[in-house]
């Protein structure tokens, strides 16, 4: 992947990620998140991970965020736009972010293996095939367990929302 494209898409992703938090309009926030996902997907495409990139778009940008926007539009949220800036909370947040970044930087700098050149990856395409083989051959049991877990969670949601209706 060309470094220029990498920087462009990284900047897109981070910029719109920031816009997600900074926007006061909920719909604008959600849409910024969508663009951020698209930037992320473009980075995956650049790494020849087409399958993950397309799933990123299909699942997150195309389905999950559409549902989010759908709900936001129906609720017509106005409270967020009226809220005042809370100075102590803002300062606290900034302090935490600075502390976390400092810690991250020190940890990364002390990690020696990070400076060593990465062993060349031999492209082993198609990647959908690779993912399928890895998931269903090597990690079949964890995969099934996660599936059951999600099933239980969704049944739980249905049961809980039914109870609230009564």
């Amino acid at each position, binding site marked *: 992947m060309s470094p220029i494209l990498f920087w462009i898409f990284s900047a897109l992703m981070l910029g719109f990620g920031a816009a997600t938090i900074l926007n006061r309009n909920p719909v604008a926030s959600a*849409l910024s998140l969508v663009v951020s996902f698209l930037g992320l997907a473009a980075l995956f495409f650049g790494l020849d991970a087409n399958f993950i990139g*397309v*799933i990123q*778009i299909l699942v997150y940008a*195309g389905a999950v965020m*559409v549902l989010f*926007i*759908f709900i936001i539009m129906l609720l017509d949220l106005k409270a967020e736009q009226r809220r005042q800036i809370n100075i102590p909370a803002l300062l606290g947040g900034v302090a935490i972010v600075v502390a976390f970044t400092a810690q991250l930087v020190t940890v990364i700098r002390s990690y020696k293996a990070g400076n060593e050149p990465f062993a060349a990856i031999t492209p082993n395409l198609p990647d959908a095939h690779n993912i399928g083989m890895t998931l269903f051959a090597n990690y079949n049991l964890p995969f099934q367990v996660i599936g059951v877990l999600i099933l239980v969670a969704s049944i739980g949601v249905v049961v809980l929302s039914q109870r609230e209706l009564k």
Partner: protein
Amino acid sequence: MNAILQFLSDPLPFLVWTTLAKSAGLLGVVLVMVSYTVYAERRVSSLMQDRLGPNRTGFPTSLLGFGIKDWSPFLGGLGQPIADALKLLLKEDFTPAYVNKFYYWIAPGLGIGAAIISLAVIPFGSSIAGVDMVIANVDIGPLFVFAISSLGVYGIVLAGWSSNSKYPFLGAVRSTNQLISYELALGLSIVPLILIIGKLNLVEIVSYQVQNGWMLLPGITAKAPHLPTLEQFLTWIPVFIAFLVFTISMFAETNRLPFDLPEAETELVSGYHTEYSSLKFALFFLGEYTAMITGSALIVTLFLGGWHFPGIPDGSAAGWLGVMWGLVNIGVFLAKVVAFLIFFIFIRWTLPRFRYDQLMKLGWIWFFEIALVNIFITALIVTYVH
């Protein structure tokens, strides 16, 4: 001159300019196809209703001295798309005062952009002079189409929401619901095909069909057409079910009748684009018909052998013969797509609109389940056949 030719045949510049040429050519063909699909829609519908339809705006052949009448009951009106395009361009582009301007302006672009980009992975021909007739030969063909067309829903949602008006909003809500519901059936219904073929690359899916027979008509191969064998017949059963589910879901995805609830005229004025006029409305219109073409192209690629037709070789032969066959392949593909578009139109003017609860029931209770069960059936059959 030689230096330029030398530069153009280097691998990277060659890739760039062939891709650009293919994109421009495909875009041109598709836009012309869209405008004539609208014309076909009007003519076919009127012929089905014992009318004549637009038969006046012909090309002025009499001025050029051909001695043909400019209008005739069946051939006139071929200039209608041009006149329509000019009319839409020259209309007043009105932006209501109460809309959310930014989103109101980007929504039409999102709608048509998604529809056009998803054409990039469709193999619309075999190859011409060694260049594959597909813009992006990626290993995730159908998924790419689904992913990009699922982004198209943002155009509709934003149009409905930013219009700040009740009917467009209702249309957008309906559209979102419908698209999300039928995307599931659409995605699941092609899993059997991928199980049988074992490839996600649309170019390879087509070449599989050239070797082993079209998915829907297994007897038609590059060799002499024959009756399907038992194995082919067994695999044909899930493919046929997948074809039905996929085609009907495609009707819902493209907002065509009998599933055109997002823009049901009798209920919602004209749905999500009620507040749009002029070029912005034209973009929605274009986007809708481009989505129809993309859908038909995908069906043709997945089920009907793409550019292949028995007796017509691919464009691998050397010299001008190969170029000619390559062009014929593109023509075959376009002919199949046009046949499907006409089928879309037949259905539109035959069936009444579904009720909303029927639409949801069909998507979630019938197609979703049928597609899931179909995957299991296919898995069993594929294990038996291999």
